């Protein structure tokens, strides 16, 4: 499946201008992580409601560029209702795409809008900031539960 740049661009613009999962959560039962970077102005929070290793709800709040905002919004959409295991595979495939390795296109759905990122290396951090935060939250939650 090959999408034109116009389609990919529309995906990013629509998720940036009208993010469906942007919502500040003030509920201690949500897992929460703050996402920021030395290199840019991105300033996000990511919130997960998890039950038995399944992500029931996912939201984000804050400000960032078009790429980071759209990427987090798409991520929240894709992980809602999914297991940790599924989310981890998404993270892996997304990073493979960033590194220009072969990856499962169909599995990444709308997230393939970021397939061009590697050509603009300064934007890799924008595209991955949400996915990296998700990875930290999942790992931390799983190791907390082991203890």
């Amino acid at each position, binding site marked *: 499946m090959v999408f034109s740049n116009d389609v*990919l661009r529309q995906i990013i613009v629509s998720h940036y201008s009208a993010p469906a999962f942007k919502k500040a959560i003030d509920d201690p039962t949500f897992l929460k992580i703050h996402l920021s970077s030395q290199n*840019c102005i991105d300033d996000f929070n990511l919130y997960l409601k998890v039950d038995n290793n399944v992500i029931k709800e996912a939201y984000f709040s804050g*400000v960032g560029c078009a*790429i980071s905002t759209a990427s987090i919004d798409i991520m929240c959409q894709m992980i809602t209702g999914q297991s940790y295991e599924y989310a981890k595979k998404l993270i892996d495939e997304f990073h493979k795409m960033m590194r220009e390795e072969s990856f499962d296109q169909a599995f990444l759905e709308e997230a393939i809008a970021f397939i061009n990122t590697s050509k603009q290396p300064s*934007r890799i951090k*924008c595209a991955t900031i949400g996915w990296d935060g998700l990875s930290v939250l999942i790992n931390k939650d799983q190791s907390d539960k082991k203890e």
Partner: protein
Amino acid sequence: MFDVKRIREDFPLLKTKMQGHPLIYFDNGATSLKPQVVIQAINDYYTKLGSNSHRADYDLSYYTSEAIEATRKEVASFINARPEEIIFTSGTTAAINGLAIMLKKFLKKGDEIILSYHEHAANTLPWFALQQELGLVIKYVELTKNGEITTDNLRRLITKQTRIISLALISNVMGVVSKPQKISNLIKDQNIIYIIDAAQAAPHEKIDVKAFDCDFLVFSAHKMLGPTGVGVLYGKMEQLESLDPYLYGGSMNDKYDKTGKMSYLNVPTKFEAGTPNISNIIAFKAAIMYLKSIGMEQIREHELMLREYVIQQLIKEVPKIIIYNKEIESNTVIFNIDGVFAQDVATYLNSYGIAIRSGEHCAKLLHYYLGVGSTLRLSFYLYNTKEEVDVLVAALKAGGDFLDGFFK
């Protein structure tokens, strides 16, 4: 005569390409490009001298030490100081941190430090750390509508507890110039230490510490055509003599014994513990000599010409432009495209080979004055041209949703 074409020949990086386009370097506020003479000077040290300084037992070491002292003399003459008043550090940040540590012994709970919202993190966080440790009070001078620091506004803040005033000469964002002579006159004969952060000023205008009559002045080599990792801490001799070192070790001690008794060498050596950044200190001399050969006034004139031109073109050609420092003479222009996130504009410009900075520019208090978080900063230097400005303006004009660069 100022000949920008000939100047550009001296900078190897201007022959490089970024994203397939000739590099247009507008991020001079962050660091400057280096002329070939500076690169060559670094190479020369490693190929011809290579030894440590302060050891005069053999020829190579002697010439290394001499080369470092030659830079010290050049720096001193550049800012109208005495060579003994010049301390080499790793940069402006290290210089201000060092000062904060050394001045601590004069400070106590309730003492006041005056800063402004313009200050770079390097001139705020070291003082915040002292504030927390000693219970100091930090005050911010009120800025005028144009962002200037006036003596009237400063006078209102000064009390019997004021011990330090530390201000940028030129803000790394707005380009605002504070007037050092007026400030030093205002605090004459009061027990107040006046520190100038000249990191953004030294590359662009004549520095004269005698005329400024400041107690300390700091700047970095890398923003003025010199190498990274070298900074200058200037101090009035009587001030330097009153301070204890902030770094201890080799090269700075006179004698010491097993009981912990130690004595130091004279100023400035006592403040330069450890092996210095030899190659880069030596190459810094080449940078200053290069700047002098062009002329600081000519450089300033060229930058102001470009600034006037870019502002005029942006207003004419880019309807959604917002310029925040139109009224301020400087080498920087701070702007946004209405409705577009600053970083999206910066990375879009990257796809045209244009290097420009987005963000808060390490001055995270400035939004209190500016009322906006992230902006784009265009900062000129001697090698920039009107043709480069034309490329920028055309790119911004064709910006659309500013995601073009992402889909090339």
